[in-house]
């Protein structure tokens, strides 16, 4: 246990000292902060468009944005989490795995009577704490920014929903940190170690959902869910691939928490995100990377 705690403390210290991932962290925090404004500005404009349409007599349909929750403004945050947050987490995981190899201390640690699994558990614990702190900052920023836009503090139910979204975000991020750590341990070069989780992410975020919905890859980055495909092959593929389409499951569960329109079961989606995190972390702890102990070369 003490090995894991010591490793966690070291991981936290080393991650904060490493300045290289700061740009990714800054991009993540900056876009989360901006997303509320983007969501608000868009909603205001669309409401004005609806009023214009109504005044010109083009429609008699009700305004689709009447009664939307104030949390609807932050729907873009969901996309920035799965776009920037996941890559940031994977990068932190890769850097954590490569740190000892770069510093040429991996072999030295190997000479000590240290349980390798406890060491890896501790590193993931440290990363988990770091990611929890980052997620907490984003949730506070979200709470404050929505409060400023609606002209008052959010009520308890809305605050709980934001907290729930924070927990879900954290689960997704630690899962990708695990994927990154695994990649950093198994691959020889820093470039491929970083490229592998990005390609895994692209497959999960674009290819798998495309197979189930026939959607354009880039349209999957829109927080508005796509109409479900009910024709034979797509319906079957959609069901078969649903557990792997983790980013889509994250969008579904987050959408339900933030009061946005969703397709599919939110509870099942949240469970799948948690399962993904559990599998990724277990693999990152248990899989050994004995052939890649040396300094990473390009």
């Amino acid at each position, binding site marked *: 246990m003490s090995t894991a705690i010591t490793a966690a403390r070291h991981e936290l210290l080393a991650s904060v000292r490493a300045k290289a*991932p700061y740009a*990714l962290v800054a*991009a993540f925090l900056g876009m989360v902060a901006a997303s509320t404004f*983007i969501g608000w500005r868009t909603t205001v*404009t669309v409401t*004005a468009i609806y009023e214009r349409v109504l005044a010109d007599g083009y429609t008699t349909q009700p305004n*689709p944005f009447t009664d939307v929750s104030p949390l609807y403004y932050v729907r873009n945050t969901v996309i920035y989490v799965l776009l920037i947050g996941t890559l940031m987490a994977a990068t932190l995981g890769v850097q954590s795995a490569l740190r000892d190899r*770069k510093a040429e201390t991996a072999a030295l640690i190997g000479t000590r009577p240290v349980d390798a699994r406890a060491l890896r558990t501790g590193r993931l614990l440290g990363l988990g704490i770091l990611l929890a702190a980052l997620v907490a900052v984003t949730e506070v920023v979200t709470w404050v920014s929505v409060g400023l836009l609606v002209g008052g503090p959010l009520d308890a139910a809305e605050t709980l929903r934001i907290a729930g979204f924070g927990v879900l975000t954290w689960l997704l991020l630690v899962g990708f940190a695990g994927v990154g750590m695994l990649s950093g341990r198994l691959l020889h070069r820093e470039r491929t170690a970083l490229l592998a989780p990005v390609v895994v992410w692209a497959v999960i975020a674009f290819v798998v959902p*495309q197979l189930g919905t*026939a959607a354009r890859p880039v349209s999957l980055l829109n927080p508005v869910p796509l109409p479900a495909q009910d024709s034979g092959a797509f319906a079957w593929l959609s069901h078969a691939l649903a557990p792997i389409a983790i980013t889509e499951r994250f969008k579904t569960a987050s959408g339900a928490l933030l009061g946005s329109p969703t397709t599919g079961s939110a509870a099942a989606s949240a469970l799948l995100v948690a399962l993904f995190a559990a599998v990724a972390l277990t693999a990152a702890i248990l899989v050994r990377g004995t052939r890649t102990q040396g300094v990473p070369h390009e």
Partner: protein
Amino acid sequence: MSETVTLARKELLDLRRDRVVWIVVGTLGLAVVLSVVVASLDFRAQLADYEAYAAQVKASGSGVTPAAPQLFPLQLLRGGMEYVEVLGALFALMIGYGAIAKERSRGTVDLLLTRARSGTSIVMGKLLGLAILWAVIMAAVVVTALASVALIGGSTIGWHEVGRMALAGAAGWVYAVFWSAIAVAVTTLTRNSTAALLTLLVLWLVIVLVIPQIGDTMDPDNQVPGGLFKALAIAKPDEHAVLHHFATYESLRNGLEVSSLSKLYERFTFATLGIKDIYNGQSLAVVWDGTFRYVIGALTLTGAALTFAAASGRRIHTLRRS
């Protein structure tokens, strides 16, 4: 000049031995094929829905039959082109980074300088090698795309399709050269390879994904599933009339989108291939008229990236191991 060519040949030899390059070619090819498979299945599903609907209309005794969905072969490539836009940029950055970072990692910069008169020659030699590599990769993508459309989509490929796809491939090459130049410049100027790699990753995220995503998500029509104007039962001409009142918002949104090279590449490619409905079936003159500013923008940005890369060669000493 000859030393630049010599360095380009050396770079190509290195790249040929680099497994990442083969993974890149395989992944891009697979993504394009997969997109054509999905688009073909989607079209067949639309056709089946139409036939079922037409049979119902006929059975009800109505004489009015709706128009059948039409297959436009190059429209099957929409997803594939988006993969080139997203993954192609990422792969160009990674390969470009590797071209410079490997010299730092191996400590071979001084050795290279014994053959070249300046750092600029080294950088330009590497860029020439990368440009040739991307010409080969884009040619492979074009061939794969056309073969997929013919074999999977069941469409006839004529000179029209080959010509349009070749233009899209040329646009993809310019796009990849831009990202290669950025990767080479940033890696040359950054002493720490990890910092260079992460800076490139952030640039990719912002330019390829975040900026276009903001523009897309601010599109009024993208606010409800299936489209706002469709949900409100508003016809296309009325939609344009309404949006005319929100010209400033639309200009800002559009300005944001075209500040990203990825969007410039996408707009030109989609217009050339007729993926964008207003350009479908139009002559190249019409396509050029609608997209020449995107072409000029993309070429200007690529020229600037190449200049930046050439200038970074003067700081080649940052590649030396301390």
